[in-house]
């Protein structure tokens, strides 16, 4: 039975996130910890529910176990619904064939039956790679007002960075006239954010056509968008102004975390009108000991701090030992940092044990690179790991 929804969202969460190295060895990128208590996927999911979109398909593929368990029935984001709600959509074995998702467009193509269960007017395509707050309803309104077949959210980027993005050239009404993927000589500074609104019937037609083309990469940016442009479809650029940060590399993940602290943070999590929901761990309040010192940092529940924490973010259940000093670092959940350790400019994953008197990374002021310790690692007492370390538990 069809239960109609006007707009549904499809969230592409299947990528490997290989540029996060140890942090995504065992989990999908959207499940990576961010901002002390969140996972990257909390941002697009919260944006959906805050925008009034209550039906979201999350397309997973790479290492989805932690992500699937985290999403669960969607209750933390009010996406646990009788009709609609959040649904995890992995690749599956069908009667005639079974295949992994070949590309972003193929992933949506393989889930057309899911979309058609809700017979929506419009489909919002999102990725789970970015940190931002956005009202998708405003973008859909813009899309409907202009009778667009496809609307692409764009953000202004510095011209010297433009070659890294898909660049849109739009006329004075916002209609897209040209699109170039990572151009060497960019003609405009409007970058595609990878957020699309499609009219469902138009999307369906192009996905079916694209699937039939054996030469296609089955990708939105490389195939679907250019094909629609070529056919003269009505494509609009929706300008977004606000914080939008890619967290696909170690550096950008670290920077985005640092954007949360400070007196006037670039991304302010203390924002009642646009809450970011997440699945909360069950932890008591944090304990800051007599000999501890915490400055310019953010700490999650259940932390126990006996040492010094400066310019850092700690997730839930992190223990910082006596005399330990943590600077300019991001520590994920339940990690224990022993007495006397010094941790500089690092990202330490979940459940890591750093025994006492270790030295990890080099100070930020020395223009060091970020040291990364992967989940479940144990760093033996007295170890010295310089910056640019990438440590992982061997299988």
């Amino acid at each position, binding site marked *: 039975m069809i239960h109609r929804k006007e707009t549904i969202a499809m969230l592409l969460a299947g990528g490997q996130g290989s540029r996060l190295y140890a942090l995504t060895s065992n989990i999908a990128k959207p499940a990576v910890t961010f901002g002390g208590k969140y996972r990257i996927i909390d941002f697009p999911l919260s944006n959906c529910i805050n925008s009034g979109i209550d039906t979201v398909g999350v397309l997973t593929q790479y290492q989805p176990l932690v992500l699937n368990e985290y999403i669960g029935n969607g209750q933390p984001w009010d996406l646990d619904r009788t009709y609609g709600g959040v649904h995890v959509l992995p690749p599956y074995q069908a009667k005639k064939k079974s295949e992994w998702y070949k590309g972003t467009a193929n992933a949506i193509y393989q889930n057309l039956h899911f979309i058609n269960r809700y017979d929506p007017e419009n489909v919002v395509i999102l990725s789970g790679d970015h940190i931002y707050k956005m009202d998708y309803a405003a973008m859909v309104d813009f899309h409907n007002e202009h009778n667009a077949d496809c609307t692409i959210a764009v953000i202004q980027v510095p011209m010297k960075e433009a070659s890294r993005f898909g660049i849109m050239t739009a006329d004075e009404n916002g209609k897209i006239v040209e699109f170039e993927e990572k151009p060497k000589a960019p003609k405009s500074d409007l970058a595609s954010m990878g957020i699309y609104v499609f009219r469902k019937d138009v999307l369906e037609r192009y996905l079916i056509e694209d699937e039939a083309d054996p030469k296609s990469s089955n990708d939105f940016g490389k195939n679907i968008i250019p094909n629609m442009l070529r056919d003269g479809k009505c494509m609009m650029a929706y300008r977004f102004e606000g914080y939008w940060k890619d967290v696909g590399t170690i550096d950008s993940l670290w920077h985005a975390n640092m954007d949360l602290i400070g007196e006037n943070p670039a991304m302010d999590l203390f924002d009642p009108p646009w809450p970011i929901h997440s699945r909360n761990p069950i932890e008591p309040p944090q*304990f800051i000991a007599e000999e501890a*010192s915490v400055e310019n940092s953010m700490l999650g529940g259940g932390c*126990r701090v006996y040492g010094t924490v400066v310019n850092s973010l700690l997730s839930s259940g992190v223990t910082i030992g006596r005399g330990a000093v943590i600077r300019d670092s991001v520590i994920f959940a339940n990690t224990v940092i022993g007495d006397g350790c010094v941790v500089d400019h690092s990202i330490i994953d979940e459940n890591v044990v750093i025994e006492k008197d270790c030295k990890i990374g080099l100070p930020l002021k020395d223009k060091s690179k970020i040291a990364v310790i992967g989940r479940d690692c144990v760093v033996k007492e007295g170890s010295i790991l310089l910056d640019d370390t990438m440590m992982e538990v061997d299988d």
Partner: protein
Amino acid sequence: MSTVGIIFTNLHGKNVPELVRLRTMGSVPFAGRYRLVDFVLSNMVNSGVTKVGIITKYNYQSLMYHVGSGKEWDLARKNGGLIMLPPYGAPTNDRLYSTRLEALKGVMGFLNRCKEEYVIMSDCDKVFNIDLDKAIEQHKATNADITLVYRRAVLTREEASQLSIIRTGEDGRVNELLVRPNLAGELDHLVNVVILRRQLLVTLVADAISHGFKSFEMDILAANTSRMRIFGYQYEGYYADLNSLAAYFKCSMDLLNEEVIDALFGQENRPIYTKVKDSPPTKYSANAKVKNSFIADGCYIEGTVENCILFRGVKIGKGAVVKNCILMQDTCIGADAELDCVISDKNVYVKDRRKLAGCETLPFFIAKGSMV
């Protein structure tokens, strides 16, 4: 073995009138993000109880909002679950009940409809993390009619006069129960957790009604120590009795100790659940100076905080110095304010440069929503 829980949320409120003016005893905030009922509910669900009736009398709006559907305790269920039991009585009786026995009379319908074999009854004024499975095991092993959970402690005359004291034989059987006696020294006092067969409870309450009895402790427990097999189960572990504002202050300050935090919140397989709020992680500014404090999520600290308990969403302004305080949810302390031994209820606003001080035996209490 099926057990239903009954929680009394309105008893003992007279002891801390400041905190109970507009809420039930069970709704009293404690330990940075909990309410007293959380400990009781968690103790019950941690021993496998899947149906809990919460008896309320008045001012239970915030309690209902807090426990909601019971989801956080896995009590949002098709079978069993959390059931609120607001006052219920004959139409001619428009006086609310005033004793435990009268409250039980009011929930006879609920008790009769339950199919569970055992009942655990608990009050909300004491804070501890107890393994009720062990108490239930002992109840069955001793073939007891009623098991009373107690604690052995050295009590002053004043402390003992607020409690019920039991005297047990070698085998743990209760020989005597003294309600609010004039005694001092090492005594076994009840912690207001009682285990018995549901059918027996129903019979006892019905019997009490027909005899016009008034007090559960005196008329049912104390009067029947020889006729019924009443046993004591000793609880040993961290325990907080919030029976005055000064006691509330002292027990809160107990939390500034890793061992107490572990005793309450670090018990394996027995976590304390509470209502979830999506607050951001607590933020410390570059000028924050925090020592020896227990701090919940969503706070923003720009000043000095020492020996404090901060609940969710508390803001400490620049240059403010806050020592030995308990600041409840969403309290906002202005810039350069100085506070010592202050307990502030929710949503209190203390303006810039204000100086407020109490002492441990008489903390300065600021009522909910006040602007100072």
